[in-house]
């Protein structure tokens, strides 16, 4: 499956950068506008999936890509757990405490630890969905 026509390939090459940017925007502004770690992560995964669909299966060296994306995912969620349990280690005996200063609501750096949680969840969700999609695609072509 050599992917789609040349027009689709060029358009997606341009488009997926924008989609990726939009996903990062949604993740970073999770505490200000609707959306957040989950929605933004899925949009970022969508931009990669767009590339794989448009440029056909061989575009990524798929098996290596799948391993890397599941590694990314494990790292993302492990940092999320470390952050959540961070309070326990720094002698604040409470799981999931909002440690950082809360700042004035409405600005970008405002909700304490919430934006950092959002970033880690965004990474984890994006890598997870990419791994799922690649697993399905690899299983169909190889078998």
């Amino acid at each position, binding site marked *: 499956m050599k992917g789609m026509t040349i027009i689709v390939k060029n358009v997606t090459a341009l488009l997926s950068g924008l989609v990726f940017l939009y996903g990062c925007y949604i993740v970073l502004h999770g505490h200000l506008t609707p959306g957040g770690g989950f929605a933004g992560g899925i949009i970022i995964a969508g931009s990669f999936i767009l590339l794989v669909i448009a440029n056909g299966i061989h575009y990524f060296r798929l098996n290596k890509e799948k391993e890397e994306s*599941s*590694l990314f995912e*494990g*790292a993302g*969620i*492990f940092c999320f*757990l470390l952050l959540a*349990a961070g309070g*326990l280690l720094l002698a604040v*005996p*409470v*799981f*999931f*405490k*909002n440690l950082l200063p809360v700042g004035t609501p409405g600005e970008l750096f405002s909700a304490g630890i919430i934006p950092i949680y959002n970033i880690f969840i965004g990474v984890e969700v994006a890598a997870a969905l990419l791994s799922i999609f690649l697993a399905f695609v690899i299983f169909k072509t190889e078998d």
Partner: protein
Amino acid sequence: MDSLIPLFIIIPLGIAFLIPLTWRLIPGICRFLPSTGMLALVVIAFFLLFYVGEGVVTYKVGGWEPMDNIPIGIHLVADGLSMMMLIIVNIIGMMAGLFSIPYINKYTGENYYYSLFSLMVAGMNGVVMTGDLFNLFVFLEVSVIASYALVAFGTSKYELEASFKYQVLGGIASLFILFSLAMTYWYTGTLNIADVAQVIRSGSEGSTALFIQLFMVAGFGLKAAMIPFHAWLPDAHSSAPSPISAMLSGVLIKAIGVYAILRLFFTMFNITIEISYVITTIGVLSMVVGVLLAIGQWDMKRLLAYHSISQMGYVMTAAGIAMIIIAKGGETRVAALALAGGLFHMFNHAAFKSLLFLNAGAVEYSTGTRNLKELGGMADLMPITSITSMGASMSISGIPPFNGFFSKLIIIIAAVQGRFYLIALLAVIVSIITLASFMKVQRYVFLDKTRTQKLEDAREVPFLMCLPMIIMAILCLAMSLMLIPGIRDTFLLNAVNTLLSVIS
């Protein structure tokens, strides 16, 4: 001391996330990681059980204090019952983790197996410890999704089909539970179990509580494989890898099914006559029909799976009897006795049923077949497996020195004292049929001398599989000591009092 409580979630989750990351570097250590993690959790659980003792410790996640006594954040509850469940879950998890190291060697993708295994235990720890309804649903989904994938781990025809059937029925059950949570939130506006109990007790006696309870019984009953919803259990447990079916049948249907029903129906709702009759009939039905289905089986693991249904029926009947007595306002001493018998039998069943599944796994590992007709004369070829299997069979069919006998005895005594003579009679008959069915297993697998040629090369399983079996057999004997007054108070009566404290 309080900050030990979230460790029950952090350690298994940390291990589960680390294993895929570090599998390439240190596969040897990663294999032992889940078992050592659960060993540490068992020690913490014992320590906390003595620390908690009679009272209840609520741990507020995120440090959100209740605002004019309406709880805001999620509360983790550590009391007698949840600590006992944690001890049982983590002991069986450690044993199955050790057993699966040589067993899973012949599959590829071991890092996925160990990661999913510790995720399943993390989910069960999460379910047992939460005091919040939606959190219970989330962690229930974590352990159930991990068990769907683990049932289909061997990806043969039967395992895939069994896992699909298990997943569809499990999915329907989860949606029934989510629907009952939505109705609870609509009725009470809050999700903390203690808070919901407060609102329902002060609220009007409408049929809303009964409607919610019916959907909860349907949802959790399907997770606990009670009779009207048991269709998935024999296929899922017989085609899963053996350490996984030991975990599924030994702990998963308890920590998610029966424990959730007991916790929610005793603490959250006030016990009415209708619900207690529903629970008792489900319990008696699964007790009787489970064992009748089990007689005709010739596949070892399928037979054990049907027996799980009937043993879970014992626990539900005991709980049902306690609920009827409380609903009718009888003396709570008999209700406490019935509940103590039910809980004691649940803990015992975890020990001997998972040991039986490990034995079946050991026999399958060395001979390659589970069909009783083809097996024979394993006693002299596999001494350790046959001894532990004999111990487990005696304890499940209730022969005195073993723990099964005492818990069934307490249930029958409570049934007689509560003037449920029919239930007591049925319990005795079912126990006799269980004895007959397990003698059949012993005879065909271990004692029958006529051995087919193919089985000559069968030899004893490696040490890492024998160790858990020996420890579990000793556990089966040791748990009958739980009736001695000294030990009984900390282990058993704390759990019973937490359930009954809300009523008295």
